């Protein structure tokens, strides 16, 4: 598993930029009050979803978290329908019932974001069980943060997946902050990879750089597809903003935030691509301008779509 091709790298850059720009736009419309409830952005963490999803087919599955826009975009979610869901509109993926914390797209194997920390991990493991049961060659990715590794769900899932050699990759984005507390409050270990040792699951820790993640993910996905069982990848990423949009992060030093923001996986990749002449300045401008147009179109679509009727609330509770 070598470096990605030039075309692949350009696409990876485009998707990372799409995640960044989409979430920046979401922060704006959330502040306007156009999006309800909670919004958790992953700005600064775009490398992980793109690094792993670059190895997945449409039939492969990913289960994501409350901070899951990036994973959904990297797995190919339709931006208009996703935006409509975030705006609570009937045209959204979940009929406007669920919003940001439950984005799902069955047609692309996006099993759904989850509002309960760690809860998606055993569910994703069940998808891997189903793939093995049906003898497909599908691979499943479970994403979570380091905070979720304190949950029983994480340990129970890893234990079972290791016993059964299930085709799954556990992708931990360790951004150092679990809701409002640093990792030292949550774990006695320095790295989440140490957690995997007890389950005899191979684990690797990588920097928040897309090509590093791409390489580690390539090996893990290949192992899973070959029936060799689960792998855990820890990405040492950074959380730029609060737990949710609007969280002033008073529990965190300004310096700590500044250091996080200085590690910009998107900017670093952009510099790499310019330096290696994969992209020129004007290519980058074009990609970003096209993304702006696409995102604006998605927002306009979402704004114009109708909300569900109150009378529709009771529909479909039971089949």
């Amino acid at each position, binding site marked *: 598993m070598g470096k990605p091709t030039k075309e692949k790298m350009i696409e990876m850059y485009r998707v990372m930029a799409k995640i960044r720009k989409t979430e920046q736009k979401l922060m704006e419309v959330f502040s306007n009050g156009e999006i309800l409830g909670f919004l958790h952005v992953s700005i600064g963490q775009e490398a992980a979803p793109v690094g792993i999803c670059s190895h997945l087919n449409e039939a492969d*599955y990913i289960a994501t978290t409350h901070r899951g826009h990036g994973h959904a975009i990297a797995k190919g979610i339709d931006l208009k329908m996703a935006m409509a869901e975030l705006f609570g509109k009937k045209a959204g993926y979940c009929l406007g019932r669920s919003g940001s914390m439950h984005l799902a797209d*069955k047609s692309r194997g996006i099993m759904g974001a989850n509002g309960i920390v760690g809860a998606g991990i*055993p569910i994703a493991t*069940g998808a891997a069980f*189903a793939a093995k*049961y*049906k003898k497909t060659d599908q691979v499943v990715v479970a994403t979570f943060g380091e905070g979720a590794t304190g949950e029983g769900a994480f340990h129970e*899932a890893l234990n079972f997946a290791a016993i059964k050699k299930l085709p799954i990759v556990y992708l931990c984005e360790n951004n150092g902050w679990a809701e409002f507390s640093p990792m030292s409050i949550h774990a006695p270990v320095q790295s989440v990879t140490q957690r995997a040792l007890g389950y005899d699951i191979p684990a690797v820790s990588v920097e928040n750089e897309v090509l590093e993640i791409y390489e580690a993910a390539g090996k893990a996905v290949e192992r899973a597809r070959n029936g060799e069982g689960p792998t855990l990848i820890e990405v040492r990423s950074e959380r730029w903003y609060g737990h949710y949009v609007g969280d002033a992060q008073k529990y965190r030093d300004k310096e700590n935030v500044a250091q996080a923001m200085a590690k910009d996986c998107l900017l670093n990749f952009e510099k790499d691509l310019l330096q290696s002449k994969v992209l020129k300045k004007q290519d980058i401008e074009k990609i970003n301008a096209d993304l702006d147009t696409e995102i604006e179109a998605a927002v306009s679509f979402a704004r114009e779509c109708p909300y569900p009727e109150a009378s529709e609330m009771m529909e*479909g509770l*039971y089949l």
Partner: protein
Amino acid sequence: MKDIRYIFAIKEAMEEEMDRDENVFLIGEDVGLAGGSFGASKGLYEKFGPERIVDTPISELGFTSLAAGAASCGLRPIVEIMFMDFVTCCMDSIVNQIAKMRYMFGNQYTVPIVIRMPEGGGLNAGPQHSQCLEAWFAHVPGLKVVMAANPYDVKGLLKSAIRDDNPIIFIENKTLHAMKGSIPEEEYLIPLGKADVKREGTDVTVVSASRLVNESIKAADALSKEGISVEVVDLRTIQPWDRETVFTSIAKTHRLVVAHEAVKQFGFGAEIAAAVAEEILDELDAPIMRVGAPFVPASYSLEKYYVPGAEDVKKAVLATMERSF
């Protein structure tokens, strides 16, 4: 017809559905090699192998959520929880995930899963192995809750539950596992959501489920000698419950007793009583009486005083007969 014990009727239901549909599998603690803690899967491991009769670590949350993920990817899991008390370890899985997945994701995913568990006393197993917690699940939108009172019902209801596309909490009763009953040789199904009038009567309606149905029939037999005619309605499914059958019976008898093994307070009987009061209060000639366990943890040495039975139903029937508006 043939005679069969309740526990083997469960096994037959699972075996027939696994024969019929290769996506059906059983998962839980000791269901494979050991044949199930109460013997419900005896012989199935030998027949279907470890791929479809899946032994798990002691990890109720993990394997229940795993089954949810597998169900959303096209399989039809039957999950066995060894004792109903242990289901408390997987409340996130059932309440936040399984009950909501289809509705919350805008109907994209269906979660056809049956979670089987035995409840109730009878083994002197004490506070953490004897509880009846069905009301908790009946309170969560998205779940169906089924309770079977005899071997015939358990087989027909379980087969329907396995074929149903909704998530189902399927509750057995430990003291019923050894109960013998008659079932047809040929295949049959019992529809979910329909109550069954187990005994017809004209003076008092007793609405019940699971073991208390049989206790209510015993009470009705005894009371008939005293000239009191009791109608016993077995809900079979407590969520969604069959209002029509219950209301029709009350319109005939004008008196109601609700009876379950769970503690009386906030039990499913309270919902039945409330719905009757809300919708057909004018049909009642006397106050509604409730039968349930006392509001304390299940007792070890005092179990025989704790678990309600025919005598308690009889007292409740007599109490409502003595009263009138």
